[in-house]
């Protein structure tokens, strides 16, 4: 559905920019902002799978993110597994845990999924804090080694940045592919009209669970990346504030579209980080921003972009 080369060029341009930045800017502070932003892009893409594509409001993303972080932290420090194995385990554990949470939560009404996932997120936080034997509780799991694949170590900021960028680009490509595939079609069908989806043979529960599980697995990967970044994992990582951030991002960018989500994540993460707001002020600002966006810009950036594209298309076909 793209017209002309403009959007593709812009996206490529953005990619080039993202790749080149560390070469140009040596400030470690800015690199840190970039790394966090890219991680949020990945997390937002994972969140969009369940919220945007299938339309189920999950509030459990922080839990899966935290589970991934702890999986990597524990497996790398206590069992000594290499990076790729840890990240794969993070994805699998998070993805599998989504099932016992999703199955009862999807059963009741739409509301119960939101509440069920919220309950799960709360319990996860409590477990992280209190199951001292497993997680060291408030003492955190420390000493997570730097990531490395083969002989290549990602110890420096720029090298880690490239690592996380590669992973998130992979996630982006995967979700974009998924949207255009048969599965993506089924997601859209379930999102739009569950009854009708049943009538054509699509099981709503199956596809919601699939989206939820994939979303959890990807969030787990991002959590794992985070563990490799700061080398310490604490129970505070499972904070429910993450959900607020993600919702702002999805609303800014436009849920359901990978491109919109990427833009929203970049806007929604880098700006506040760069502004260096105290966390309370930032949350108030986010809350207000979210209210403003909900009320005045229901379509987000992606909606705005689409409108521009459509106008451009009309002009080019009528030419």
């Amino acid at each position, binding site marked *: 559905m793209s017209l002309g080369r403009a959007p593709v060029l812009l996206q490529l341009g953005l990619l080039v920019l993202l790749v080149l930045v560390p070469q140009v800017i040596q400030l470690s502070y800015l690199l840190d902002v970039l790394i966090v932003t890219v991680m949020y892009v990945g997390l937002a893409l994972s969140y969009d799978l369940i919220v945007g594509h299938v339309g189920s409001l999950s509030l459990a993303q922080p839990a899966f993110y935290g589970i991934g972080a702890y999986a990597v932290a524990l497996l790398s420090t206590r069992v000594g597994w290499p990076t790729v194995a840890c990240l794969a385990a993070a994805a699998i554990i998070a993805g599998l845990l989504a099932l016992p949470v999703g199955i009862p939560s999807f059963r009741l009404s739409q509301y119960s999924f939101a509440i069920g996932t919220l309950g799960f997120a709360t319990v996860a936080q409590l477990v992280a804090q209190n199951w001292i034997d497993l997680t060291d509780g408030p003492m955190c799991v420390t000493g997570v080694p730097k990531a490395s694949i083969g002989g290549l170590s990602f110890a420096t900021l720029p090298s880690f940045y490239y690592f996380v960028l590669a992973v998130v680009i992979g996630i982006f490509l995967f979700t974009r*592919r998924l949207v255009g*595939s*048969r*599965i993506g*079609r*089924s997601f*859209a*069908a379930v999102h*739009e*009209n569950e*009854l*009708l*989806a*049943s*009538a*054509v*043979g*699509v*099981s*709503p529960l199956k596809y919601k669970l699939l989206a939820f599980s994939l979303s959890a697995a990807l969030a787990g990967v991002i959590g794992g990346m985070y563990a490799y970044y700061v080398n310490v994992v604490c129970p505070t990582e499972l904070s429910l504030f993450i959900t607020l951030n993600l919702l702002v991002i999805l609303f800014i960018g436009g849920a359901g579209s990978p491109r919109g989500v990427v833009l929203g994540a970049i806007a929604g993460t880098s700006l506040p980080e760069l502004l260096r707001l105290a966390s309370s002020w930032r949350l108030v600002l986010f809350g207000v921003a979210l209210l403003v966006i909900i009320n005045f810009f229901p379509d987000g950036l992606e909606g705005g972009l689409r409108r521009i594209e459509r106008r451009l298309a009309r002009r080019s076909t009528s030419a």
Partner: protein
Amino acid sequence: MNGVLEVERITKRFFGLTVLDDVSFGVKPGELLSIIGPNGSGKTTLFNVISGFLRAERGRVRFHDTDITTWPPHAIARRGLVRTFQDVRLFAGLSALDNLRLAVQQHQEEDLLGRFVWSPKVRRMEREATHRATALLEEFGLFEQRHMRAGLLSYGQRKLLEFAMAIMPEPEVVLLDEPAAAVNPTMINTLTEHIVAYNSAGHTVVLIEHNMGVVMDISHRVLVLDSGRLIAQGPPEQVRENPLVLEAYFGR
């Protein structure tokens, strides 16, 4: 039991109101059966029960001797029993082609890996689906609109698309809920032609209709429901003369 679809003693109640009362009938393979009756007689509820959207308090539904009474709707659809809805339901946000591809993809065999990886097998199935979808759209005069979002089609076009979606996976039995409702006479002819064509190809069609012209014209057999009860069944001419039927429609 040698009908392709057997409905046995179905009773359905809503809050104390009996909407279907001990309804039993069989559908012969290749038949074109119409179900008629005054408003509120339970016809759509009957469809809902048969296709798994509602659970009856009593009775069984059998499809090829398999008891599908408790099956969920998507399983029944995949088995080969497809239904349409009274208010035309399509995926407005998807293109016409995508609606059709969606309608058939659940019926194609896929392995688990194929679902994720764009394997040659999946690619072939997609090609076949697109091929058939395009042919169908052409047949229904919707080829020009194949990439259009279904929500943007005209009412008549949506009706055609809905029927196309229903027959896309070539189900053995298709339940059509008022396919000719609120449609202009030309379109009614078009739809009826397609319905009869599908039936002549050997598929079983069960129709709910109010349009007596259509019913009398194309049905092999007619069932009459009144207040949840089956009050008559037989060939169209016979049912038309039936005093019970006349009473149900024109008052007591």
